[in-house]
């Protein structure tokens, strides 16, 4: 089957999550991604053993899923021999991607200027913490950068601690932004023949995680930066309600016809007759009383019962599921958001996150899970770079490769 990024070679000098997931998007759509790792231990994510104090199980899904479809070449970039191999790889590649600190890349002779001299049309992509300009220099991880964007502080009930969007939430977003930047640069190069450098930072991406609210704040609406209680939302018809089982998210505009349908679903003639709630303006002004009145009724029902009643009235709503529900969700499997793939490490099929971007003619695919450290070093050196076997032995003796 045709692959959208067939023929594009990417050098992936990334660790942990943002950089690897960025290259994963390219690999899924057919780019040849060569992951460059240090010989001792490789990408630190190979060492992940638990998640939320839970044993990760017999295979490292943290590392193997986001590094799927990639090759692994182990090189010690601190050695002269290692840099020589790296430069020969650069000469054969279209994209260089790294989420290491720019100062570290400079120290290893891997600055944009240096690589451009070797491969003039290289696309040189970095994933910095806070952007390439400005003078901020401090460690950057998903959550410490998310902390600065303001998105955490506005979530949750008033007085409760701020809310983190979930493990890897910011890295995942930085990763797709980086992939977007890379395909844009590839598209431009196709026409102009020129490469360029690009940066997709964790901060720049995460500022867009709350774009509708941050934009509103920038225009002067300060309240959007603060926590707001679900007991006080303007439109009680668009809100979360507890039931005897799961919570239910009701999503309807504050319109008379929708209100009438909700009253029928809740079986409350008294609600429909309540003059305070008779029109949209009243429902907005008496929002707290209305939310309480609806809640009193939903609490007496199971979520399935409530959803059935909502369904009969054509009301848009969903139960608030948990992770045990989503992994069984037919919709997720039917659309390839989850897939089954072979795991060499445990010699069985495992369930993995699939392809969230669906291309009809060149669908992505999972050819293999993440590589073993350095598994392709010799093959890539021989086949792609034309090293002879005795030269490879010499590189080993010099400590450039394991």
């Amino acid at each position, binding site marked *: 089957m045709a692959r959208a990024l067939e023929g594009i070679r990417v050098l992936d000098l990334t660790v942990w999550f943002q950089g690897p997931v960025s290259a994963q998007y390219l690999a899924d759509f057919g780019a040849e991604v060569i992951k460059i790792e240090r010989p001792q231990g490789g990408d630190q994510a190979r060492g992940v053993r638990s998640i939320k104090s839970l044993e990760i199980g017999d295979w490292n899904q943290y590392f193997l899923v986001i590094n799927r479809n990639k090759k692994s070449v182990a090189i010690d970039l601190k050695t002269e021999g290692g840099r020589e191999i790296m430069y020969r790889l650069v000469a054969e590649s279209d994209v260089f991607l790294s989420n290491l600190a720019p100062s570290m890349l400079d120290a290893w002779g891997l600055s944009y200027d240096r690589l451009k001299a070797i491969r003039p049309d290289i696309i040189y992509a970095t994933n910095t913490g806070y952007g390439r300009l400005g003078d901020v220099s401090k460690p950057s991880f998903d959550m410490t950068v998310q902390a600065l964007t303001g998105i955490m*502080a506005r979530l*949750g009930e008033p007085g*409760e601690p701020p809310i983190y969007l979930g493990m890897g939430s910011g890295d995942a977003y930085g990763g797709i932004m980086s992939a977007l930047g890379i395909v*844009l*640069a590839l598209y431009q190069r196709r026409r*102009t023949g020129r490469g360029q450098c690009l940066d997709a930072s964790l901060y720049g991406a995460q500022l867009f995680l709350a774009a509708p609210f941050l934009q509103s704040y920038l225009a002067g609406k300060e309240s959007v930066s603060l926590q707001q209680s679900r007991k006080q939302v303007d439109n009680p018809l668009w809100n979360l309600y507890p039931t005897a089982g799961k919570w239910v998210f009701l999503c309807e505009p504050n319109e008379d016809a929708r209100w009438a349908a909700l009253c029928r679903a809740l079986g409350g003639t008294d609600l429909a007759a309540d003059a305070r709630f008779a029109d949209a303006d009243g429902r907005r002004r008496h929002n707290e009383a209305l939310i309480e009145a609806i809640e009193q009724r939903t609490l007496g029902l199971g979520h399935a019962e409530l959803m059935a009643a909502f369904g009969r009235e054509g009301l*848009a709503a969903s139960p608030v599921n948990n992770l045990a529900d989503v992994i069984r969700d037919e919709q997720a499997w039917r659309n390839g958001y989850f897939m089954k793939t072979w795991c060499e490490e445990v010699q069985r099929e495992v369930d993995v996150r699939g392809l969230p971007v669906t*291309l009809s003619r060149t669908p992505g695919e999972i050819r293999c899970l993440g590589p073993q450290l350095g598994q392709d070093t010799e093959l890539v050196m021989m086949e792609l770079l034309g090293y002879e076997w005795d030269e490879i032995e010499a590189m080993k003796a010099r400590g450039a490769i394991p």
Partner: protein
Amino acid sequence: MDRPLDDVVVIDLTRLFCTSLGAAFLGDFGARVVRLEPLPQEAARTAAGWNHEADLIHRNKESLALDVRSGQGRALLHELVAKADVLLTDWSVPELAALGIDHAGASALRADIVFGRLSGFGPQGPDSGLPPIDELAAARTGMMPILPQPGQPPVYTGAGAMHSTAMLAFGVVTALLHRAASGEGQAVDVSLFGANMYGAALDIQAFLAIGKGDRLLNPISRLDVSNPMSGALYRSADGRWVTLTMPDTDRWWPVFSAAVGIAADDARFDTHDKRTESRRLELIHALEAAFATRPGGDWRRVFMEKQLSADVIERFDYPAADPQARANRYILELEHPSFGTVKSLGFPVFLSEGTARLDRLAPCIGQHTSQVLRDLLGYSEDAIHACRSAGVVA
């Protein structure tokens, strides 16, 4: 200046913030984005003052107002689609089919079109027809119950919709690359459900692999965090919160312990195992007490000085005033013709040779109708006048 998508024409048939912003990203990087505004326009509900949302999600676009209900309007729509490289939409399949511009229809008009569509739950499966409402998609994803503290209501973040914006733009440009190589167009599908799932990458993948675990099904109290030095939240003396990400505690402990006033060789906490396993709760309480002794601003200075991976949790006033956000054009200061100097979100990605542009703010409805009909379809002034008189365009 040259930009990546200078040779790309996009027809923008979108209603939602996230999809409109996806089209704007293509425009930022050079695409000619023609936004179709169906006539008759609903009664405008514009609030007084600056329409900050439109100036973000419709920047750099041209606007063409068109009545697609008439046969003549439909024909004009088809002429436009035939000239488009990309059609980007969040309309339902039946709506598009009724206009003859679902994927099959659009491909018949323009064989190599890239047809980008956002749906609620994906093009396949029993729920493919559900409306694209991000709250419904987020509720299905399984993450909402575990984001808050125990006992609190589920949390909707809105981040899934923003994830779909970047995914749609990525998918479209990837399809354009394939088209450039092969001459073939195709459909690009992204859903709010899939985007929410990918935004919650690690928890979902962990549960998928492990298949059980209360700590993935129920909220974890911040006072029971798995690693007291990573993912933790502590309240400082002035009520501002600090957060830490130092998963490999051995590396950070010598400097970190000094910063919070615990002896590095304190026998309670002198190994990673003690810090994250046997003495975990004790360390959490020690840190809770330590962080409560000084205000957030002090802690930021300490974190900076010691180059610790930690920070203070800020509100929007922080990025709004942050020189770093300005220097990198994540937040712009711009001159608005009616409202003077205003701030707006800028561009999340920097390209050295294809720098994102801000050529103009959101267009008025129908502002570029004549221009588009002339440039793109080669209509004469007379023909444009005739369309206007017939009420087909405005």
